[in-house]
């Protein structure tokens, strides 16, 4: 018995000792990025603009040019050359791009003008991705002039022509994809082994666990400083945190996804990098009756009630407790990036007394003294839906529920599985929807969810104010006053209270301190990883592999 114990103890010790590093000298660094969702495919535009897909695709597929650091979509001269070496404006509706002759696909073929044309043509196919087709609708034609030169023509002069040309649809290898029918790309050998042109090439996928990319040492903009990028997938928040704390992962995009981010912040192994995000979250008021969407909502149809509810919430506390002290309370549907760019004002502070007064003046008082306001026998009871997978929104919903309870509003919170949440939201079967949206870097995207024309599309709450539509339309036509017009539109929306605009997070990225030259981008955080280096002498065992 005793001998057995000794043997057992010994084997536990050997097992518990970390496995010895199998060191070979090949590697010059590995970064392990831990992420919640697995990218379906790294091929841009073919599988929707999903954030998980983009993290990978932006390392494999370059655009003609990247947005300037502040994401100013209208600032043509400040775009950063990538596949395009230079560009020239021929007239107000024509742009010419000159491709970098050094740019090559991972299979060795040069990147040509035909690849650019091919990608835009695929993007314009309505049946593949209606929304993407909508984004490039104002490009009237793309033509190749020789192998290195591409001419874009637009339907009319407008402020964001350049952005539309380079941003939405990165070039695709026409020599590999032209013969694959657009419907069957997902099942093709290209999907299994995608060929890009960026700093990293596809290495392998272990489904449900990781995606590994390896450095493209012939990358024409410079040899990547790290030889491996691994996206480690862990659906569970705690598992993600434990991987970081346990030293098995190096980087994460938002430490506020963890309920107790100080653990990473105070850990000397990590450096934190603040980055305003493109995300904006709000509690959307349904303006139509969930039971019959042709009728106005019996409670929320009244703008005064919506305004009162917005006033009742202490948005400042909700945001700071969920997304940290540097995140913003947005006025209107603007992310932190857009709020800074538009210099939009801060929203009014919460005022529960006034909220109560407004509700009282609209006939909502506690007649039956049960603690819940009522009017004509109907209690002020509302249901808020949100995806059950979102911890942050759960935390905010719990706070909203309690704050509203104190002014006599009963908020029922209803976390839904994503496959239920999405159709519920789309068909307008909700009172309130705790939505989080990653915006395009341009305010012109506002017209999708906040214009009368968006009804039937992403404007699921039936918010419609013609004045906002006019402002947005004017902004897109006039580059000089665009910023002021966009700001006016946003402020008007906030005033109408179609939603309680809750959070515009500034994310804190955590990255292992052994990396230097760390740069991140707000529109695609990891796309500059190829510039990172491991500090000499601080290599971890996985860096040498």
């Amino acid at each position, binding site marked *: 018995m005793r001998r057995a114990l000794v043997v057992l103890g010994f084997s536990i010790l050997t097992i518990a000792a970390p496995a010895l590093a199998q060191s070979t000298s090949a590697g010059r660094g590995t970064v392990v990025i831990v992420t919640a969702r697995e990218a379906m495919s790294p091929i841009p535009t073919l599988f929707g603009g999903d954030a998980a897909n983009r993290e990978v695709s932006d390392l494999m597929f370059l655009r003609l040019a990247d947005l300037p650091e502040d994401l100013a979509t209208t600032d043509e001269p400040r775009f950063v050359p990538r596949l395009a070496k230079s560009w020239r404006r021929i007239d107000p509706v024509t742009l010419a791009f000159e491709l970098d002759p050094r740019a090559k696909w991972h299979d060795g073929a040069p990147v040509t003008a035909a690849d650019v044309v091919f990608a835009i043509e695929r993007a314009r196919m309505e049946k593949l991705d209606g929304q993407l087709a909508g984004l490039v609708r104002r490009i009237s034609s793309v033509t190749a002039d020789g192998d290195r030169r591409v001419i874009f023509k637009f339907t009319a002069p407008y402020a964001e022509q350049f952005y539309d040309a380079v941003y939405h649809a990165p070039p695709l290898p026409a020599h590999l994809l032209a013969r694959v029918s657009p419907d069957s790309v997902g099942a093709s050998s290209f999907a299994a082994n995608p060929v890009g042109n960026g700093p990293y090439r596809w290495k392998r996928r272990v489904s449900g666990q990781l995606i590994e990319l390896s450095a493209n040492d012939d990358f024409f903009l410079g040899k990547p400083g790290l030889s491996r990028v691994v996206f480690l997938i862990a659906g569970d928040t705690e598992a993600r945190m434990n991987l970081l704390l346990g030293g098995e992962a190096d980087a994460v995009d938002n430490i506020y996804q963890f309920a107790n981010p100080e653990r990473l912040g105070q850990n000397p192994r990590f450096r934190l990098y603040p980055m305003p995000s493109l995300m904006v979250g709000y509690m959307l008021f349904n303006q139509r009756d969930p039971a019959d969407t042709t009728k106005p909502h019996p409670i929320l149809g009244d703008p005064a009630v919506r305004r009162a509810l917005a006033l009742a919430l202490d948005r400042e506390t909700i945001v700071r407790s969920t997304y940290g002290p540097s995140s913003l309370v947005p006025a209107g549907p603007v992310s932190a990036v857009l709020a800074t760019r538009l210099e939009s004002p801060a929203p009014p502070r919460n005022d529960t007394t006034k909220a109560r007064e407004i509700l009282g003046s609209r006939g909502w008082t506690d007649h039956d003294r049960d603690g819940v306001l009522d009017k004509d026998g109907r209690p002020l009871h509302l249901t808020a839906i949100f995806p*059950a997978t979102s*911890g942050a929104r759960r935390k905010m919903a719990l706070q909203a529920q309690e704050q509203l*309870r104190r002014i006599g509003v009963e908020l029922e919170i209803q976390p839904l*599985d994503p496959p239920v949440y999405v159709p519920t939201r789309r068909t307008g079967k909700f009172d309130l929807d705790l939505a989080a949206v990653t915006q395009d870097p341009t305010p012109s995207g506002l017209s999708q969810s906040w214009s009368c024309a968006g009804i039937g599309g992403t404007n699921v709450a039936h918010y419609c104010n013609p004045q906002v539509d006019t402002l947005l339309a004017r902004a897109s036509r006039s580059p000089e006053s665009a910023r002021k017009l966009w700001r006016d539109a946003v402020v008007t929306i906030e005033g109408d209270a179609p939603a309680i605009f809750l959070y515009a997070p500034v994310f804190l990225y955590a990255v292992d301190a052994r990396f230097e030259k760390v740069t991140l981008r707000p529109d695609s955080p990891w796309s500059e990883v190829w510039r990172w280096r491991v500090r000499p002498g601080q290599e971890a065992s996985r860096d040498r592999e």
Partner: protein
Amino acid sequence: MKESVRYALRVTWARPEGRIGLTILAIIVVAALLLPPMLQDPRAQPDILNGSLRPPNASHLLGTDHLSRDVLSRVVHGARVSLAVAAGAVALSVTLGALIGLVAGYAGGWVDATAMRLVDGAMAVPRLFLLLLIAAVMDHIPLTLLILAIGCTGWFGTSRLVRAEVLRIRQLEFVRSAEALGARRRRIIFRHLLPNVLGPLAVATTLAVGDVILLEAGLSFLGLGVQPPTPSWGGMILDAKPDIISAPWTSLAPGLAIVLTVLSVNLVGEALRDALDPRES
């Protein structure tokens, strides 16, 4: 009936396990019944930015959680919910199980065969899967429906147990003679068979209570059980999960509450089983 309850209590108390179990259980029940008026509002979030995740102190005996709510108050209120769900669900499943077991066992033939194949089939699917699916079907679950769901997926085992007992008792002299005397079926089932399966049924019931508490905690942990603002133990662990390192009290308190309750119920069940088991006497 009163008689048999008193007897059950006496024999349980006679065993050390039973004594420990009954004592803990009594403390929990009394706390759940009497304490709430003396505690803070379990829903109140007095100061989220500065008062969250405070360790135990004089004003919050078990500390506060991530929304600055009082953990003690939530554990005590959670006890009410957990016990109510357990009691309701078990009452339902035991009644269903006993009825179906009695009928199947007594009727025999194709009724019995069909019922038992259905029960086998249902038992071949893990109960958690069934519940996950039911939770998906109902997409949001008020407390009563939760009780119904847990109750309706819990009777399979009980019905087999009761059926086996009935098959055994049916062969005994007194049932045969009652049948020979032309007693009506319902009378035989309720007057002769039921009282005689009460013993094993009591044991199964007690043990089922523990299982249901664990199950409800698990469902709430997956975000599918009791919905806020009603506090529940599983929901508290779900909320506390990210803070398990920096604020262990937030998960320790509901965790221990679950462990103690389930333990006490199972101790009582085991003691009862020992007492009713002929081998032991």
